[in-house]
């Protein structure tokens, strides 16, 4: 957070971004993007989950604490959840985590929620590239440089 400014000009910095993708929509979109030979930043790591609602706060926090510079949570559009209403719960839980990060002044912009359907291969490539670029500008996660926790 402190060294945000000096690092933001560093175009050499390749952010580690982790995406938690729902199996039914966004993971299929990732497949489609791959099949369509769209370019995805190579530093983007994917974790496939059965539903966006299955992502516990501890999983996201641990990911940050283990050094991810940004986290993208992606699921089906509201109303299109494979299980009916999982993404509505995911949205509430996400709002809560984001609010905690905001209140504690912990870079909430490093965490983002998006809806990408199985048909939106192009949108998937765009979303991932844009988010990676945003994190590159933000600079490295300061949690990486502290050995005190």
């Amino acid at each position: 957070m402190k060294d945000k400014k000096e690092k933001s000009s560093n175009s050499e910095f390749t952010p580690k971004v982790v995406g938690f993708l729902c199996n039914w929509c966004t993971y299929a979109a990732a497949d489609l993007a791959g099949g369509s030979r769209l370019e995805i930043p190579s530093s983007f790591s994917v974790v496939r989950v059965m539903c966006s609602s299955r992502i516990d706060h501890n999983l996201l926090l641990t990911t940050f604490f283990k050094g991810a510079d940004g986290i993208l949570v992606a699921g089906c559009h509201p109303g299109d959840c494979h299980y009916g209403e999982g993404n509505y719960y995911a949205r509430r839980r996400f709002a809560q985590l984001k609010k905690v990060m905001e209140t504690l002044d912990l870079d909430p912009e490093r965490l983002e929620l998006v809806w990408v359907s199985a048909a939106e291969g192009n949108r998937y490539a765009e979303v991932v590239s844009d988010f990676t670029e945003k994190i590159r500008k933000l600079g490295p996660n300061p949690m990486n440089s502290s050995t005190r926790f």
Partner: protein
Amino acid sequence: MSSITIEKSASKGINDLLRHLLSTGKVDAVLAMRMMPDTGAWDLALVTDVKNLKELKPLAPVMTVNASQVLSNLSLSGKKIAAVLKPCELRAFVERVKREQGSLENLFTISHTCGGVFPLDLVAEGKVDRLLPKYEKVVSAGEIPSNIRDTCKACEHFIPMNADIMVSAAGECKPGEGCMIYLNSDKAREALSECTGEHGSAVLDSTSLEKLATARAREREKLFSSIEKDCSGLDGLVNIFGKCVGCHGCSRVCPICYCTLCDFESINFDYNLPYFEEHLARKGALRLPPDTMLFHMGRLTHMSFSCVGCGMCSDVCPVGIPVAAVFSRTGESTASIFDYLPGRDVTEEIPVMIFKEEEFPELG
């Protein structure tokens, strides 16, 4: 609202009321704070024999354990229990009922306007008796005693919500000058229809508590802004939680942290060689015990919106981390996005268990 006036001090009046409930068989047991006359030691006691009632000090500003925790299993025993709870204990119990950790069905919840409680170190040092006269004087003047818990000073919910029976013990009621008892439910009116005292109808005079409410709001702002200054941002959090010894005491005494299979006590946090290797390869040094900050952050995100600010966590912290203040502030802000107030109403669902189809348009 039905009311009973007893021409005695509030603390004697409430003992009369408990005696009536127990001796007439309206309840099987009474749960309240107790002081042992021979040693002066305080504890929370469950009493079934009328002769043990005289040791009870139901209105004492002491909380040795958040009573809602021990009430969970008791409330499911099928026995009728009259439980004297502080407003935050009652709210915490309501939060527990929402999580299926107890039931209000067999309970008579008795609560009172609360002036705040003494920190546990003062209780352990046996100072309560000596401090009580001054405490009562300050509280009945509608002011905040300087030696109560920080979160009590900053608590705006000192009037109980939804208690079956409410006793006026702060502000309105002068010590030794008559005890007002308000009956909020049919269950309470039925059980106390023959209780001695003047039966009538009255509403709690909240104007006499306005001064206290204003003072508390000012303290809350002061506490939160000091926490915001010292305990936010990564550096602030590292400083404040860097002292943590990882005893998990704050979570053990927390009335909301009820999970017996806590993630942080599970094998997920059983550190092994690969964990150390991975961490050290990345950072070159590792703070031990590990993950204390993750523990607090995890708790903050999992349950802070239900935090009632009872202050038990800060009181038991061996290294003086202001856990309760951080949780109260964060909890207020997370609860606000769901328009939620913990313990307000037992029918109000926990925010993460429900949803609206159209909400948070700024996300996703």
